[in-house]
């Protein structure tokens, strides 16, 4: 089988260089799927337009602003802002412009609400960094133009809503002034700016909204100081906490005079609560304080008097206020009860009366409610109805209306941290999930349609029907393993700590699980998921054991926070077990050994360089002890510019005897001079990569041996000056050094310095070559280089006999002191685009030629044949080299639009590209993720081992029928002809004989 496919491969290798990945427009969605997400919603504003479709505009933590259909949750339009351009606030101005304030309050943009076209953009500068606020007052007019009030960078701006022009501005330059609130009381022409100065002084500025004139400035000092945020309880009163978090300060600045009242929390709540924080809310007259266990709602009555209205230990979320009439404000409150959430809508001045009280059943896998946004609508009977948009712990977005979930979006998938794959269950006899076509008529109709399609006789409606039929063919979304290995589960870990399993056939979510171990708890305050590893992949026990994955996470952002392991079954999504470790996890090394239950051995390195073996079984330990001396690894300290090699030493010599813990020793270290080199990229080969052949036959019957080692590390360093952005450094003071390092011996096998180059460097390592992408400052273009490394020690093994009997890698001893005889070849080419990610296709046996997958700056994925990055390319290749498939050298790499694997789609916010081999040698599965997800199948050398999707069976059938018919027709014809011939012969004979008889008679 392998040999056969190899010949086929050779056949295709020599085929022409037309783009290999190419797609007809009607094939979109057959093998690929694309899903659009937005990320965890930070802020939502409902559009109040009466006509047209109802929309909600949201900004998210992925830096997306999007307009969503309120009825179905679909995206109308969406923009992903730059990574540094964090959105601070959004609002809707004049009912038709979406206003966004971003980049720490320095960029203000306006977008057209219906189609998302940017209308204007303004840059706002200021004297110093500060909090930023965006206000869109409804009644503040300026020559018929609505005015936006923006406070950012210590400056107050009034900006025209129509064209973004700054009408006036006012600086707040006082060194220590920290703005806390900007208030524009409706119906007045005043703006209040309140804040703290020097952490114990309360400052209030009253400003004329018409021209920015300072009307009043008052300040009052509070000896106890302030802590945390302030909450606005009315347009002229704020509530703050003192620095101990135990006394509430009610400060009112009515008519420009500051008066205050102090209320210890203990006066309001009997039992002591410990330090509290204020939960900011915009509901007038009510604010909330929260301690570790309790949330207390407090109402302000009259002159700074406070009253507790509710105390709850449930997890709670409160929305902002929604004004429903002249003097009425409503807000929504969500409380958790085991498997339900209770939604109540109350009026601001009437705590006890509920406008609405509903309970909604909620999937436990969504976790807690993090945010609530409320909106109202007028029912047919002219009463108010309410709908709320809620953001859950797993970052999903749900719309609740009339006690039901109207729609939900799994926006956690916009922030994927790590991806791995899992096989699907084997199809068991008798249990078949495949659907059989309902009846013969349907079946016939389907095939007739397909036939029409192939003969190009189909009308557009027929084409649509064929397309939908192809798409929902049950084959590709079945829940069992297939022959070709196209159906798999993609296991993804998201930033919210939720694990999803996506089916590769259609991208649907098979299961999702919010990891309990990644839940906030006493012991683990802010858990973050780190990585996914394949824990158990059963082959021998595939029928009775489920595969599982290992999720490694840690409590807190610092690298020495204790780690948490959890094990999840990939068929069911159940968390099998979880372990809270007493040590940190700095590095996880999956070892190439499995125990009898096919659990993979993993070595976890902690912050003090101790190695811990998992699973903690005696069997694993005995396997590990056997291989004790063969385990090497390396670590990169990119801050210090050091790469170190490590090996195991002995059992831990700690006070607690732990036989699964080992001491380590440093074998070697490579120290890069910090004044001239800074590590920017390190890559190694993928652990599961398969190399089919070590030898490469070159043109003149010569053989080159690839230097294939799992222990090769590619390191790129740049000049420290050049590690910044493009244009910040001149070509003379910038360089890039590329190294190939053996990670067992620490030997530098190859080193090359490029002058006038700059990062960022993206690199990929496969077989015996590495490709890296960087910026050339001299040419001011991006470049890509390839380095190929060949083993020279076996170079004289030219024929089969020498190959068998000659010098071999296995027979020659490996020593630290003997220099491996290697040669490298390299070449560089220009490439047009910046890159975000780079990957290489991988196939089951490594026979198929490779393609590089380049995630471009435009969020597209381009497939580029590795043959374009072949250091043996020359300007005029000889005939022999041409036959071998060497392309004439050009200075830049071609971009063929048909070889974009994402075709006309964008994987917005692209972060990573993952390739997984299918069982079919020609095919590899590609998954690209960012804010969007994209999946497709690629055949880098075309599908030489199977028929393509567009193979015309009908034409084959017609030809066979025509041939058979032709055979019968010609047979008939020839038979008749022969008969005729015989008749004519006999008749001639007969006439002759009659003639002769007559002759005889005559005689």
């Amino acid at each position, binding site marked *: 089988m392998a040999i056969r496919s190899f010949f086929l491969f050779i056949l295709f290798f020599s085929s022409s260089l037309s783009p290999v990945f190419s797609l007809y427009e009607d094939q979109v969605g057959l093998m690929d799927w694309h899903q659009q997400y937005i990320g965890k919603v930070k802020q939502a504003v409902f559009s109040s337009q009466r006509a047209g479709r109802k929309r909600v505009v949201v900004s998210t933590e992925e830096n997306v602003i999007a307009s969503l259909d309120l009825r179905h949750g679909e995206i109308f*339009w969406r923009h992903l802002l730059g990574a540094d351009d964090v959105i601070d606030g959004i609002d809707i101005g004049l009912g038709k412009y979406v206003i966004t304030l971003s980049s720490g309050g320095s960029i203000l943009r306006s977008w057209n609400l219906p189609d998302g076209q940017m209308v204007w953009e303004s840059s706002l500068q200021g004297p110093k960094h500060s909090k930023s606020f965006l206000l869109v007052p409804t009644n503040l007019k300026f020559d018929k133009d609505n005015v936006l009030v923006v406070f950012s960078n210590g400056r107050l701006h009034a900006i025209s809503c129509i064209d973004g022009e700054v009408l006036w*501005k006012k600086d707040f330059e006082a060194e220590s002034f920290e703005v806390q609130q900007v208030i524009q009381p409706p119906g007045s022409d005043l703006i209040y700016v309140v804040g703290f100065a020097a952490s114990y002084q309360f400052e209030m500025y009253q400003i004329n909204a018409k021209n920015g004139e300072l009307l009043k400035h008052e300040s009052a000092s509070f000896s106890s100081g302030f802590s945390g945020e302030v909450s606005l309880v009315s347009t002229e009163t704020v509530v703050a906490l003192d620095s101990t978090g135990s006394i509430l300060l009610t400060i009112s600045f009515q008519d420009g005079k500051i008066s205050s009242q102090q209320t210890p929390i203990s006066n309001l709540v009997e039992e002591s609560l410990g330090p509290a924080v204020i939960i900011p809310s915009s509901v007038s007259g009510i604010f909330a304080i929260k301690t570790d266990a309790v949330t207390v709602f407090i109402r302000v009555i009259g002159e700074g008097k406070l009253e507790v209205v509710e105390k709850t230990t449930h997890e709670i979320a409160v929305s902002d206020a929604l004004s429903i009439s002249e003097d009425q404000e409503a807000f929504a409150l969500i409380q958790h009860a085991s498997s339900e959430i209770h939604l109540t809508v109350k009026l601001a001045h009437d705590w006890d009366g509920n406008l609405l009280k509903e309970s909604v059943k909620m999937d436990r896998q969504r976790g807690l409610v993090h945010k609530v946004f409320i909106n109202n609508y007028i029912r047919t009977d002219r009463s108010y109805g309410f709908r709320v948009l809620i953001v859950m712990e797993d970052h999903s977005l749900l719309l609740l209306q009339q006690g039901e979930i109207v729609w939900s979006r799994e926006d956690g998938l916009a922030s994927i941290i790590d991806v791995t794959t899992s096989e699907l269950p084997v199809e068991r006899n008798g249990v078949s999930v495949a659907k059989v076509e309902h009846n013969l008529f349907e079946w016939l109709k389907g095939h007739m349609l397909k036939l029409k399609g192939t003969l190009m006789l189909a009308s557009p409606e027929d084409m649509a029907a064929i397309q939908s039929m192809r798409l929902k063919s049950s084959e590709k979304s079945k829940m069992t393993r297939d022959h070709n290995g196209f159906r798999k589960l993609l296991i993804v870990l998201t930033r919210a700590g939720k694990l999803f399993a996506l089916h590769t056939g259609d991208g649907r979510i098979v299961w999702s699980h919010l990891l309990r171990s990644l839940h906030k708890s006493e012991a683990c305050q802010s858990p973050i998921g780190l990585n996914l590893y394949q824990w158990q992949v059963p082959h021998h026990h595939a029928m009775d054991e489920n595969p599982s994955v290992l999720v490694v996470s840690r409590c807190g952002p610092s690298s020495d926070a204790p780690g948490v392991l959890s094990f999840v079954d990939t068929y069911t999504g159940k968390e099998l077990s979880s372990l809270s470790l007493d040590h940190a996890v700095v590095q996880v090394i999956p070892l190439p050994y499995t125990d009898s239950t096919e659990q993979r051995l993993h070595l976890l390195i902690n912050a003090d360089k101790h190695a811990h073996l998992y699973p903690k079984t005696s069997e694993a330990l005995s396997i590990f002890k056997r291989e004790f001396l063969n385990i090497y690894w390396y670590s990169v300290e990119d801050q210090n510019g050091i790469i170190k090699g490590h090996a195991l030493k002995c059992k831990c010599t700690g006070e607690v005897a732990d036989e699964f813990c080992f001491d380590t020793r440093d074998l070697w270290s490579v120290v890069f001079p910090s004044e001239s080199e800074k590590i920017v990229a390190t890559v190694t080969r993928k652990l599961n990569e398969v190399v089919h052949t070590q030898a490469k036959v070159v043109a003149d019957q010569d053989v080159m041996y690839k230097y294939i080692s799992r222990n090769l590390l590619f390191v790129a360093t740049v000049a420290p000056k050049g590690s910044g952005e*493009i244009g*910040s450094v001149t070509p003379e003071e910038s360089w890039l050094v590329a190294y190939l390092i053996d990670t067992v011996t620490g030997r530098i096998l190859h080193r090359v310095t490029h002058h006038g180059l700059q990062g960022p460097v993206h690199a990929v390592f496969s077989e015996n070559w590495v490709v890296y992408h960087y910026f050339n400052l001299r040419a001011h273009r991006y470049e890509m280089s390839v380095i190929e490394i060949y083993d020279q020690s076996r170079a004289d093994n030219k024929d089969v006999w020498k190959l068998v009997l000659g010098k071999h890698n296995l027979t020659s001893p490996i020593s630290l002191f003997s220099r491996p005889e290697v040669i490298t070849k390299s070449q560089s080419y220009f490439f047009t685009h910046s890159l975000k990610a780079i990957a290489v296709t991988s196939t089951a046996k490594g026979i198929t030629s490779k393609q590089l997958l380049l995630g471009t*700056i435009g969020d597209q994925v381009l497939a580029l044949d590795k043959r374009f990055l072949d250091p043996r390319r020359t300007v005029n290749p000889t005939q022999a080299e041409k036959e071998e498939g060497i392309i004439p050298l050009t200075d830049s790499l071609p971009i063929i639009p048909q070889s974009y694997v994402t075709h*006309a789609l964008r994987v917005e916010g692209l972060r990573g590209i993952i390739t997984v081999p299918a069982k079919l040698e020609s095919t590899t599965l590609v998954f690209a993720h960012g804010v969007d997800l994209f999946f497709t199948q690629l055949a880098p050398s075309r599908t030489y081992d199977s028929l393509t999707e567009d193979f015309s069976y009908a034409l084959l059938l017609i030809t066979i029928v025509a041939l058979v018919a032709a055979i019968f027709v*010609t047979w008939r014809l*020839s038979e008749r002809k*022969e008969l005729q011939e015989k008749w004519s012969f006999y008749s001639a004979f007969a006439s002759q004989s009659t003639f002769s008889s007559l002759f005889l008679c005559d005689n």
Partner: protein
Amino acid sequence: MAFSCKNSSKFNGFSGCIKMVMVGTSAIMMQRRTLAMEASLCVKKSKKKGADSVTRPNSQISAAMAAVTPLLLLLLLSSAPSFSSGSRNAYNINGRVKIPQGLGTKGYALPGRMSNVKVLLNGGQNITFLRPDGYFSFHNIPAGTHLIEVSAIGYFFSPVRVDVSARNPGKVQAALTENRKGLSELVLEPLREEQYYEIREPFSIMSLLKSPMGLMVGFMLAVAFLMPKLVENMDPEEMRRAQEEMRSQGVPSLSSLLPGGARN
């Protein structure tokens, strides 16, 4: 002109007219025009603005553009130093993306969607979007050499190298990096359209015949119908002789190959 004026006045606090002269001067430095002309234009425009300040900005822009389009382009090219910012060496880069109307009408449904076009500075360090008329600007950019890329589905744009000079503020040089062509003004146009799909050829008899199976059928038919015709045209005497020869050599005829042929 007015548009540029308004634009720049957004970024700093000076009144529109003073600012305009400043922008004008920088343009003059480059384009060697007289200050007087710029100034007079400025006054003229500001009068106009006063007259119809109530009208919508778009109509204002289009009216102004029609009047002074060539100047407008020159002015936009200049990058006005933003005096209001704290740091002295921060500049703005203003430019325009232009997609010719003729392009993109065929193919798929993208074109006309200017809202999906992104302009990226230095590999995504800054990202901005286009205004309805195709203009874009980057704010607070340090002096130096920068790279601008345009991402638009369906079009191939060459990255543009932009030099912002610190020595003579406002001077901007731009060049396409793909073909090293200098740009006299920062107007970015696609080099070519990108067709992501193969074009499916319409059904034709020729394509059917050219396929291997079509050729097979064609050959079959040729053998079945043309061969007998050739045979017919032969001289019967010769034919008989040939048949005799064939029989004597034992070459089977077509009919003897077929099951029915065994009967004789």
